[in-house]
């Protein structure tokens, strides 16, 4: 028997309350039918005796207290899944946006997912080459990793993400890969940019898109990454795909979370964000990984724009504590016209130590990467000294560092957006630049490696 409750007792923002309800459970999906026949969906977020609070995904515009019928479905929110989602475009809650029919599901999955048992995880070790020197050499992306791009408004993070998608390949290229693209509160132009780029590179047939635009309801923005990751897990651990998930923009997601939290009247934490934002972000980011005995993997590249380029803002800060490293873009490199403007020093890949070097990439990879970090950080000291006493007054060695820094940025970091460097090219270029410096300055590299790769004079 279908039970419908008529009327509401309270409407506040995207929340509505009903009284006299029984037999429902927390997190259950509800269908709300408006007077004009429009159907909306909601989720139970609080039960207090007979009173139930619902969060309405599409917002409460046009809803009145009397002429509304609510039906509880008895299930949590599930996403219909089958292999045919590849090539499709959906909205933030998983409804088709491409004018095609609903997915005929092989399976329906709860979008909240479940935590991977740490015992069942497989430690990620196989590296993904992006053909971008500043990533491959010093912040290598590993399959199954979550490696966000920390950017700022107006920087070229979208171009970088698109280039990663175009060029990403593993040592073993026979594996099947798929891309899940999730847009949260981005402008239409951004979504179009990615769509076109996927189309041009012929990847569109392997892409699933979940799009929530800047003007779409915020509740759907909170659902969008959950739908995307559910689809990614399904493709990875049911069909064995290696899935790369691009999520943009996490800052809009967090702001939606804040808006929703304040509408619930919760006690705010730093900068008004809810105190559970760490757990909430973790429930998304931790869905990356590999599982023992499964062929596929989920790799995440979330993009976030740091408000006012501030890396200590709660959004990048909490993200950095959860993700396995970060690729930070620098406005000063961007202003020098360097693409991709990857700031080498704050960028980090926590998993690269176990997926690079002998047996994985090339024997000198880790040593070289450590040395590039160390030498480039000495460049910063030399430059700040030069800004006080002038470059001419610098000691010989500091002058060498300044020259090294200049060439490192112009030749190593900078590359074309269609330029796909092999790992060999990247590493050799790194050695060529390091050879500008005297051998005794290279304290991070073993003598064996220096004998083999160092080309400078003693």
């Amino acid at each position, binding site marked *: 028997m279908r039970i419908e409750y008529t009327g509401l007792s309270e409407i506040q923002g995207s929340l509505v309350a009903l009284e006299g309800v029984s037999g429902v459970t927390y997190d259950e999906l509800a269908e709300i039918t408006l007077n004009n026949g429009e159907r909306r969906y909601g989720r139970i977020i609080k*039960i207090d005796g007979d009173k139930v609070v619902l969060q309405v995904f599409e917002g409460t515009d046009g809803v009145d207290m009397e002429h509304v019928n609510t039906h509880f479905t008895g299930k949590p929110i599930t996403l219909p899944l089958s292999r045919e989602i590849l090539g499709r475009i959906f909205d933030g809650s998983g409804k088709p946006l491409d004018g095609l029919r609903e997915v005929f599901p092989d399976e329906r999955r709860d979008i909240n*997912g479940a935590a991977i048992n740490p*015992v069942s995880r497989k430690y990620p070790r196989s590296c993904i080459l992006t053909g971008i020197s500043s990533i491959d050499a010093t912040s290598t992306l590993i399959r199954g990793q979550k490696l966000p791009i920390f950017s700022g408004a107006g920087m070229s993070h979208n171009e970088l993400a698109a280039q990663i998608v175009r060029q990403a390949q593993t040592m073993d290229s026979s594996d099947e890969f798929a891309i899940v693209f999730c847009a949260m509160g981005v402008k239409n132009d951004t979504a179009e940019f990615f769509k076109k780029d996927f189309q041009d590179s012929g990847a569109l047939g392997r892409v699933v898109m979940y799009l929530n635009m800047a003007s779409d309801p915020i509740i759907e923005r909170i659902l969008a990454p959950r739908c995307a990751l559910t689809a990614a897990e399904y493709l990875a651990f049911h069909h064995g795909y290696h899935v790369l998930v691009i999520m943009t923009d996490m800052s809009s997601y967090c702001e939606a979370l804040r808006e929703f939290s304040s509408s619930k009247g919760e006690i705010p934490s730093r900068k008004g964000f809810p105190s559970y934002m760490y757990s909430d972000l973790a429930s998304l*980011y*931790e869905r990356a990984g590999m599982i023992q*005995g499964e062929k596929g993997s989920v790799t995440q590249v979330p993009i976030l724009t740091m408000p006012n380029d501030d890396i200590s803002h709660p959004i990048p800060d909490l993200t950095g504590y959860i993700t396995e490293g970060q690729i930070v873009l620098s406005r000063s490199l961007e202003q020098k016209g360097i693409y991709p403007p990857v700031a080498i020093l704050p960028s980090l890949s*926590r998993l690269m130590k176990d997926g690079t070097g002998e047996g994985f990439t090339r024997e000198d990879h880790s040593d070289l990467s450590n040395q590039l970090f160390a030498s480039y*950080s000495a460049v910063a000291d030399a430059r700040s*000294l030069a800004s006080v006493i002038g470059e001419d007054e610098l*000691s010989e060695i500091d002058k060498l560092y300044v020259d090294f820094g200049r060439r490192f940025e112009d030749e190593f970091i900078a590359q074309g957006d269609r330029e796909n460097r092999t790992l060999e090219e990247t590493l050799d270029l790194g050695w060529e630049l390091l050879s500008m410096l005297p051998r005794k300055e290279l304290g991070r590299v073993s003598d064996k490696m220096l004998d083999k790769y160092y080309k400078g004079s003693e």
Partner: protein
Amino acid sequence: METNNYYIHGVNGPVITVRGGRSLPMMSLVYVGNDKIPGEVVSANGDTAIVQVYEDSAGLGKGQPVISTGRPMSVLLGPGMISNIYDGIARPLRTIAGMTGSFITKGITLPALDLEKLWDVNIEVKDGDDAKGGMIFARTMESDAIEHRCMLRPDLKGKFIEVKPSGRYKVTDVIAQIVDERGRKTPLMLAQEWPIRRPRPCLKRLPITRPLVTGQRVIDTLFPVGKGGCAAIPGPFGAGKTMVQHQLAKWSDADVIVYLGCGERGNEMTQVLDEFAELKDPKTGHLLMERTILIANTSNMPVAAREASIYTGMTIAEYYRDMGYHVALMADSTSRWAEALREISGRLEEMPAEESFPAYLPSRLAGFYERAGYMETLSGAEGSITVIGAVSPQGGDFSEPVTQNTKRFIRTFWALDRSLAYARHFPSINWTTSYSEYFIDLKDWYENNFGSGFTKMRQQIIDILGKESSLMEIVKLIGADILPDDQKLIIETAKVIRQGYLQQNAFHKTDTYMPPEKQMIMLEVILYLFEEAKKLTSRNIPLNQLVATGVFSALYRMKFDLGEGQTKDYFIKLIDDSISKVLEGNE
């Protein structure tokens, strides 16, 4: 006995209101709803009780039953915990994976121990022996490295009767009875339950006189932590907190390691599992996993269980301490625990204090850190718990409440530094802002074990680093070239100390762990060069000549050369040769 019919009245995230009776004890364990998910009673008001549940509350609804156990949250302690991995409320994750596959499902109730496994037990008491709480009555080899000593529950007293002979038993087999003065009998098993929030008793606290030797130069030499002491590692993300924790878990000279992954990454726990199953303890030659217990509440696992996880870890640590072991508890990260506290406090609509953390944050932190200590146990042995807590301050700002309150209850502070991490100086422990209050207590131990004169050498190293940091202020403005030679020498030596000594490569085969005697050699060699070079400069011989011989940069690599068997004499000779070469040139 249970006459009340408790049921769910309301659900708000992990906070459940329960009605139906007034006799739910505070902090007792309940099973909530049709899925029977575990929870704890956190407050009561009239006929309404508030329960926090340890799993996702989706699927709970009004009217579903709540089962009271009447007992506090407890963990079953006994043989079989070593090498195991548990969730925040001590459910074995390997067994769960066997039952439900790769993803964790809800409503599983499992004891911490394997109830079916048979242990070779050596029973050491006989009928009529006096029984006293905490005494050891049986032993069994739990792993190659750890002998499990079964102790009497601290509250039991009387005489042993019906003692079974040594042999193979399960943890819940009754192997004896305790009869007290009034003739009441209590069956005795290998396993015992203990409430996680109650500290296990011991005879008395002893002073801290021995360090936890870690093989990490910056820690052992400059900022040691005593066995039974507390240390905190605060640092922004990417500064290497987890790396330091892993290094200590691998190489410190504790007998048992309890590694608590509290709200951190799943892959990190997997990494520990993988690595510790292969690496060997340099002192005993046993696999590291043979002395390690892991507790994992990764950041996407239920938040209320995160709050409980540090107590679960501490209770297990205390249990092994009571056997007479030196236990090191690594908690990574206490900030996640504090945030879990904040999240639940917010749901309970409590009045928030600083940065919306609850006002009782400091007292909870104190309660946790004070469970560490060097103790005489009830059985008369000595055991200790050393607590090493990572702190993840928001934005790397150490003025936030968790770091500040933690500082009041710890005595060793390893401040990790973002700028050192950017320059890939690891471990990125900043030598000017870190401190150890334990060194004074440990001085005698160091003089006897590292070598006499250690205290003086350590002080010299600290002085050189201190002078360097004030000189760097000048160097940043005018460059190093203009400094007089004695100051240049400070800078060159400090560079050797920083690059050659303080930096330690965790991924290098030998450099990852350096035993005390080699640390001592390094100190002696570095200071020998410093003194000899000082003599040169006092004769107005330019320091650049000595630098040009490459002797300073040779010492950068001394740590690797020592690892490959090079001796102290070799380096002393190297220094002497370089000095004579310079002297000859100035004849």
